[in-house]
């Protein structure tokens, strides 16, 4: 309980589009778009395998209540709390952070 709940960061490489965070969020502030595509990493001669590819991942921080359920429930640790607290915007649309912006918040 010693982490600072500033903003939520995403690691898109770890996200498998399992939809757990989207479904568990109590305020429905997370939206996720994805599609299925053949896995480029199958070994030689193996049969084709489909994987989920993340297209869009948006957290609307205007609706987020900082409960942390999404961070807790992610099985791949793709979501993380970060210390950033100065993310005020002049419009409510600006509070919806997409995949790229969420990845920028991530500090290793």
């Amino acid at each position, binding site marked *: 309980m010693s982490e600072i709940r500033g903003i939520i960061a995403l690691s898109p490489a770890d996200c498998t*589009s399992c939809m757990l965070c989207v479904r568990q969020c109590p305020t*429905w502030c997370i939206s996720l778009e*994805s599609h299925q595509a053949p896995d480029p990493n199958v070994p030689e001669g193996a049969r084709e395998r489909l994987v989920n590819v993340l297209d869009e991942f948006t957290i609307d921080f205007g609706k987020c209540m900082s409960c942390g359920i999404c961070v807790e429930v992610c099985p791949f640790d793709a979501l993380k709390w970060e210390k950033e607290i100065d993310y005020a915007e002049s419009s409510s649309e600006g509070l919806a952070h997409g995949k790229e912006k969420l990845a920028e918040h991530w500090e290793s």
Partner: protein
Amino acid sequence: MASATNKIALTDFIAKLEADLPVAYTARSLVADKIELWAISASGETLTTEISLNETVPSIAGDEARIEFWEREIHQMFGVVFSRPESNQSLYKADVEWALAKPLNSETLLARRNQTPWPGAKEPGVDNPVGKRRLLPPGVDPEVKTEDLI
């Protein structure tokens, strides 16, 4: 909620709080008709108890207006019935429609929530999935017409 809670029986919960009037008293809606009452006693102990909505909860308000306020809030938001009739009024008596709505109860359907598309309904690659098992969040029932809800 708090990390060190003490889940006890309703009678013990009331007895402890009567002796040690709470500084905070609220509730949380669990599945079906189960409600968890949550309070912090004056000595700083966090207490919780689980009740079902058909139980009458003994009132600890007595002469304290602040505790009556909390009990009325719990009554209005969750539908919990207290033993004291003054505690079984909603906070805003003029707001008749919302007084019956029990909005924080997880079983309650609210019109705006029921008609908002749920982002969790999507599956990877499929726009409108039709599966044998339909996923629904709490507080949404597609069988109920939105005009009938508040």
